[in-house]
């Protein structure tokens, strides 16, 4: 079955089964490997992308349910206002250690700031709790989010 999906502003036609998770389409069909595979059961957040601005776990998102909604991945997030701020703060604070989870962390943080420009700790907890970092960069992630929000 052929699906036309909009990713980072570009239309892509892909011929896959309708229950193929978006992550498989991104990585295996389109070669966009910035989005990572972590657990495959929406428990780690590494595969987070935006669909119409909402952070979603692409490992469980069936491609057939996307329709005309706009997908944004780590490759395109820098073109958004919140995404650009987050990426700059991530570099300024040197958040990343091994980096595997970080595209997912950045996508969740960018979605949080786009919806809520001045999040408090509880907002950050609620938005970021589903993104796991094996290296334990949580403290720097929190600082970087506050820095991107202009509060630290």
């Amino acid at each position, binding site marked *: 079955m052929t699906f036309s999906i909009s990713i980072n502003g570009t239309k892509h036609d892909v011929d896959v089964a309708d*229950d193929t998770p978006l992550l498989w389409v991104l990585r295996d069909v389109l070669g966009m490997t910035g989005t990572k595979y972590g657990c495959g*059961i*929406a*428990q780690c*957040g590494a595969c987070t992308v935006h*669909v119409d601005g*909402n952070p*979603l*776990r692409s490992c*469980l*998102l*069936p491609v057939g*349910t996307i329709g005309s909604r706009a997908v944004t991945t780590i490759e395109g997030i820098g073109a958004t206002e919140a995404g650009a701020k987050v990426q700059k703060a991530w570099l300024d604070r040197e958040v990343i250690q091994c980096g595997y989870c970080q595209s997912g962390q950045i996508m969740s943080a960018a979605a949080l700031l786009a919806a809520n420009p001045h999040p408090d700790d*509880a*907002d950050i*907890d*609620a938005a970021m*709790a*589903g993104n796991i970092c094996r290296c334990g960069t949580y403290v720097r992630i929190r600082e970087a989010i506050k820095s991107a929000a202009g509060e630290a």
Partner: protein
Amino acid sequence: MRHMSPARRVAIIVVAAVAIVAIGVAAWLVFGPGPLAFAGNSTVALADYHEANPTGVPADLAKADAIRRGEYLAKAADCMVCHTTPGGEAYAGGLAFPLPFGTLYSTNITSDKETGIGNYTDQDFLNAVQRGIRKDGARLYPAMTYTSYTFMTDADALAIKAYLFSLPAVHRPNQDDTLLFPFNQRWGMIFWSWAFNPNTRFAPNTAKCAEWNRGAYIAEALAHCGDCHTPRNLAFALDNRRKFSGAVAAGWRAYNITADKATGIGAWSDDEIFAYLAKGHAMGRGTASGPMGEAVDRSFSQMAPADIRALVTYLRSIPAVASSEPATIAAPAPTSPKEGGAVADALGRRVFAQACASCHSWTGVSALSPVATISGSRAVNDPTATNVAQIVISGTQRFSPGAMSMPAFGSTYTDSEIAAVANYVTGRFGSAASKLTAKDVADLRGQTAR
């Protein structure tokens, strides 16, 4: 007696009267109507019924051989789910049913001559399925739902036997049950069976349409809906005065599926009931999990659409019985976790944020897939949180096409964390928060078949 004082005589008469009334009440409570009594007594023997045959298989299979017909009927009767362990060989038995007085194990019903039913004659098989009597004469417990299968025709039961005998024989010895006295006395079931097994075949109802009769046959003789959904009385027999009004079976709540609009499925559309049975999900009504999820995977999803429609027609006719579930189904929760119910439950909220929000969203309306939407479901609106806790413990592994699975968290989270997240979920997405404790969760873990 001649010298008995009048006061003493009155006392004896009163005691006798009370005893008679008590026996009468007990009998009334225990000996209820049969599962089809609600539809009236315009019944005829199957041979005298001249509409479409309500028994057997769908028309396109009618000319198939007994093995193929038996496969359809075995799936409709859902033999596999109880007679197979998770990951075990099909129909080889061994599933454990923990009861308050010990554990029962399902048996090997493959054609293995030593450990299965390979030596059963046709009559032996009918005796087991319709009458609850084993080949060696021992009585079956009603965990084997022969009080439902008794309505099956001989032809259908024997087609199931032909199908089972066409499958590979599996050598797997049956385990001994661990029931305590007096429950370990199988002969006692002679009296139970005499009282509660009608031992009669399905009799069509001429006051109802052919589709209703087909639905009745599937629901009562094959799918045995009542064995989970009908409450049981003191004698562990189905209380058909409250037919299909919901009960707890094997640690899961089987909801009210009567026509009651508030607590049953009276407000569901035909299409919603059809979708729930055929695919395990109805938009905005929740997703089948636990034993019902297994029934969808192994049984309903395998049935012909016309048979599911017949079931819908039949379910529509079940008299409305109000049950204790909340009459209101809560609307979706607010987008912000700072608003809405249960915000004070810090542990439950933390677990929800870590493990649940990614799929189920803070609103309960999943951004990933409608099958992961929990808002609007009966489970989150059930203040006992029985099924919410069970789903967290065991997840849902669906095999139907298009289905999604949820991971099991039973070995990841402690009993107190599971209790907290269940209380948070019912508080946030339901009409009343549950008050589960760690001990309640431990009890629920102990009640499931495994």
